[in-house]
């Protein structure tokens, strides 16, 4: 039985780290787009008009009810089957695996995050909104100055969990030929056939990224709830 090949790990880590840029691009781009989408979905959902809320609910139901891998495959392998997609202005984006991965991850995370935001908005104390109304603030003003700041604080823990799961989902981009960290690791394993050395090294890198995300959000949370702690 062969023992762990330390030299191979030392050789591979720099190669794997070349993919960290792509992993971060996938993470930050789809997080930004997904969060923006989530805000739009949230506003439609709580608009109080059924013809705006119903399609949103269907959207969320579909994207949360199917595997992200299937969504990626539909967008990357499936859409080119359709004639009008190939002739549309989006074709330059949809032709590239990178564009497809970003679109799939954003659409997916948007559905999850909008539910998290909704939970936050519903968690805001009614009395505060009533107080705002009594002071003569409009609906929009109440949403911006009263509901949003409190809702953001309420949904931060769930949001940070979603950022972690989005980060984990970026590894699926390796299934559509992208060479993120996971893609590079799979290439090296195919060359050397040393799954333990390579996959365990990538695992450590992913764990460090997860830890950094959690610490960052923990810090933000602490800063945002200073006024609560000082009272106690």
């Amino acid at each position: 039985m062969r023992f762990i090949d330390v030299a191979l790990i030392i050789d591979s880590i720099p190669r794997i780290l070349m993919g960290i840029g792509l992993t971060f691009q996938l993470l930050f781009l789809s997080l930004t787009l997904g969060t923006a989408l989530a805000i739009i979905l949230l506003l439609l959902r709580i608009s109080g008009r059924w013809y705006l809320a119903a399609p949103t609910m269907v959207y969320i139901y579909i994207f949360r009810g199917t595997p992200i891998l299937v969504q990626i495959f539909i967008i990357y392998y499936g859409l080119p089957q359709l004639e009008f997609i190939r002739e549309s202005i989006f074709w330059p984006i949809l032709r590239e695996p990178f564009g497809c991965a970003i679109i799939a991850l954003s659409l997916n995370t948007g559905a999850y995050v909008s539910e998290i935001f909704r939970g936050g908005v519903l968690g805001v104390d009614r009395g505060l909104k009533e107080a705002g109304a009594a002071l003569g603030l409009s609906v929009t003003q109440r949403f911006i100055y009263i509901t949003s700041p409190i809702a953001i604080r309420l949904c931060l823990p769930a949001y940070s969990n979603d950022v972690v799961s989005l980060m984990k989902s970026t590894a699926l981009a390796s299934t559509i030929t992208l060479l993120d960290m996971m893609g590079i690791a799979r290439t090296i394993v195919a060359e050397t056939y040393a799954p333990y050395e390579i996959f365990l090294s990538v695992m450590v890198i992913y764990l460090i990224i997860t830890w950094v995300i959690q610490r960052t959000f923990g810090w933000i949370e602490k800063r945002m709830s200073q006024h609560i702690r000082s009272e106690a």
Partner: protein
Amino acid sequence: MGAISGWWDDFFWGSLVVVEIFFVALILTVLFGLIGAGAKLSKSRVANAIASGYTIVFRGTPEILVLLLFYFGSAVALTAIAQVFDPEVKFVDFPPFWAGSLAIALIIGSYATETFRGAFLGVEPGQIEAARALGISNLQTFIYVRVPAMWRLALPPFGNHMLSLIKDTALIAIIGLEETLFVAEQATATTGKPFTMFILVGAIYLGFSTIITLSVMALEKYANRHLAVGR
């Protein structure tokens, strides 16, 4: 839609594989979750450390990475062992079905560990004290008092874990298990209709998710029936 017609039976068998994986992995998930929660709540420092390590690792790494590590890792180990007995052997692999269910169960089990831990802590101490006062043994208290009180609290988050579980089964297609996504890839190769095929896979998974969601709602109603106001 005509392209699907020759593939209905393949998709049917693929769906059946998804169901099999789901139930095998579900049992293992509950098992890992209970062991993990037990270890986290125990007084033993070693058990605490192992359980924490388990949840940190499996919740912080991509699912596909755990899956590939299990599949190729076990294949390398098994091949090495087989070569000791018969040097002619080139490649032995762990069946994708078992490598896949084990990997997924360990991942979702790490989430279930946290859920169960919280649910056990949520059981009113008075109930356990009452059981002790009645002279019921620790094991009986666990089976008849702690678990029935805990599963009611654990059910809503556990329903979400079951949804993640069914969706993660799609990943096992990557290591060659013949479930729906794998069937769709093959069907695409012969029919040249990827959109139709993958949309069908999506619809199948959406159906499974719906069934799970409805079942969990029914179970929650059943679990909380004593709390319903008598009418």
